[in-house]
């Protein structure tokens, strides 16, 4: 008796298992689409909004301070753009101050921010601390590298091969995959001289395939975040009443 109950249980089990196993699905059709996220076609889930509200209020206090004013939208572009020129020149100026304050004998000749690391644009009008966070969200450090002229050339060749980038202090023409007629401080680049490059630790460590920078003769980690350097420069100039009006100056041109 017990056995037959067991057996019938077993049979039921096997039957049920085979039922679930035999379930078969065939794809009949599909409908695929991409949807823009905006107020026009989506209703915000207020539960989510209220979840981040306390964090938002905490952030807004620090982020809404105005530290600059532009007269037009500044968007990054290649081979040069007003935004990348502004940032590169700012980096060169501010990194020279940092170098001087640190008291070393090194002073930056060229500045560089990698294009991919510039994450947004500056809109026309007031620029807040928030914008700089969005532009430069990474916690990267300002690094000063002493490079042989030949390595500086290899570095700028790589910049040229990528179609131009955010470079200050140097001028050149993109010729094929190379940077030709490189001038640093208006003088021709010499392979046997040494030059100082101000850039981020990300690039200095060979990021974005800038591996030639690992050949640096000397490296100084300034301990300052790039973003803090940018904010300090902008604050100072904003307090002095300066408007942000960078120009295209032909520092990088296509042949």
């Amino acid at each position, binding site marked *: 008796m017990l056995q037959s109950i067991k057996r019938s249980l077993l049979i039921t089990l096997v039957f049920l298992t085979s039922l679930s196993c035999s*379930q*078969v699905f065939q794809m009949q059709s599909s409908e695929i689409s*991409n949807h823009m*996220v905006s107020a026009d076609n989506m209703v915000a889930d207020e539960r989510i909004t209220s979840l981040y509200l306390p964090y938002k209020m905490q*952030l807004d206090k620090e982020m809404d301070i105005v530290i600059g004013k532009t007269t037009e939208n500044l968007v990054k572009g290649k081979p040069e753009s007003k935004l990348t020129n502004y940032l590169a020149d700012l980096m060169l100026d501010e990194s020279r101050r940092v170098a001087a304050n640190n008291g070393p004998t090194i002073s930056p000749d060229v500045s560089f921010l990698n294009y991919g690391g510039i994450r947004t644009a500056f809109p026309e009008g007031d620029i807040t601390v928030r914008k700089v966070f969005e532009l430069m*969200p990474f916690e990267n450090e300002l690094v000063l590298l002493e490079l042989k002229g030949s390595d500086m050339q290899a570095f700028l060749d790589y910049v040229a091969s990528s179609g131009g980038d955010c470079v200050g202090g140097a001028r050149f023409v993109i010729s094929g995959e190379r940077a030709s007629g490189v001038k640093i401080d208006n003088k021709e680049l010499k392979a046997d001289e040494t030059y100082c490059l101000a850039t981020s630790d990300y690039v200095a460590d060979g990021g974005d395939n800038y591996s030639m920078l690992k050949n640096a003769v000397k490296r100084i980690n300034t301990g300052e975040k790039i973003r803090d350097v940018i904010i300090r420069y902008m604050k100072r100039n904003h307090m002095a009443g300066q408007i942000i009006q960078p120009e295209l100056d032909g520092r990088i041109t296509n042949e």
Partner: protein
Amino acid sequence: MGGLPMNRRIFIKNLAAGSAGLAAGLAPFQGFSKNDLLTLTLLHTNDLHSQIEPFDANHPRYAGRAGLARVAGFANACRLENPNLLLLDAGDFFQGTPYFNFFKGDIMLNMMTEMGYDAGTIGNHEFDNGLEGLRDPLPHAGFPLINSNYDFSDTILSGKFPRYKIFKKSGLRIGIYGLGIQLRGLVNEKQHGAVRYNDPIPVALEMEKFLALEKKCDLVVCLSHLGLRYQNDKISDVSLAPELSYTDVIIGGHTHSFLEEPLQIRNKAGEMTIVNQAHYGGLMVGKLDFVFREGSRKRSGLRSSQQKEL
């Protein structure tokens, strides 16, 4: 910028499946009521980059657009319409706004959990605060981060990320694996430490076969952070798709690609694989609806694409 473009829907009728039914001696549509049809919805985002709020009102390109609350609202509405839904993300939810600088990864993973994400994968920016910066906020993620080609075994992240995950929706089995991008040259070594990167192609071949044949999944999804396509021969979603046979969908990220409509790429078995990416920052949500016919006449386990091959 005037009205936003309407979303374009592509309707794909799976003719092959119908004829396979015929070949197998089944009358394809006879005797199947609407109750035998089951729709699965995949919603997906990528490269959210901690864009929790909508873009600023003065943003030059995306003023007032995006916002996680809206993505959540859309997901809620879709879930009401069809509870057989998975909300997925293809990586790089970290980094991009002060929310990340001030609150690290915690708040973003918290938000995604509250939004009801079912799974995600790991993008290169997940390593921005180092391995600790990825490990520490993980308790806030109420969903798995799936990766199949990073080897974390010599790191503090060992065992934290499943290689695959199988979801069941009304009996339908959805197998998901994840592919991460080469970290060398993209992420500094001090950030990714001893994480080993394995070639995505053999890993994808192994995972899709495993999920489709061994685990009998009805749909195989690849969550990829490889990037949509490149000028050079670097591996991408578009170059991966033709190498595969059992992956039905590649949901991608990394290249912030804006696609008006999802792509369809012929795979090794001669069938179309859906490849999609949804811009970035929560500006877009991809919606993939798959209609399955449920039958119980066959004994088991051949999945749809195999039947289509008959």
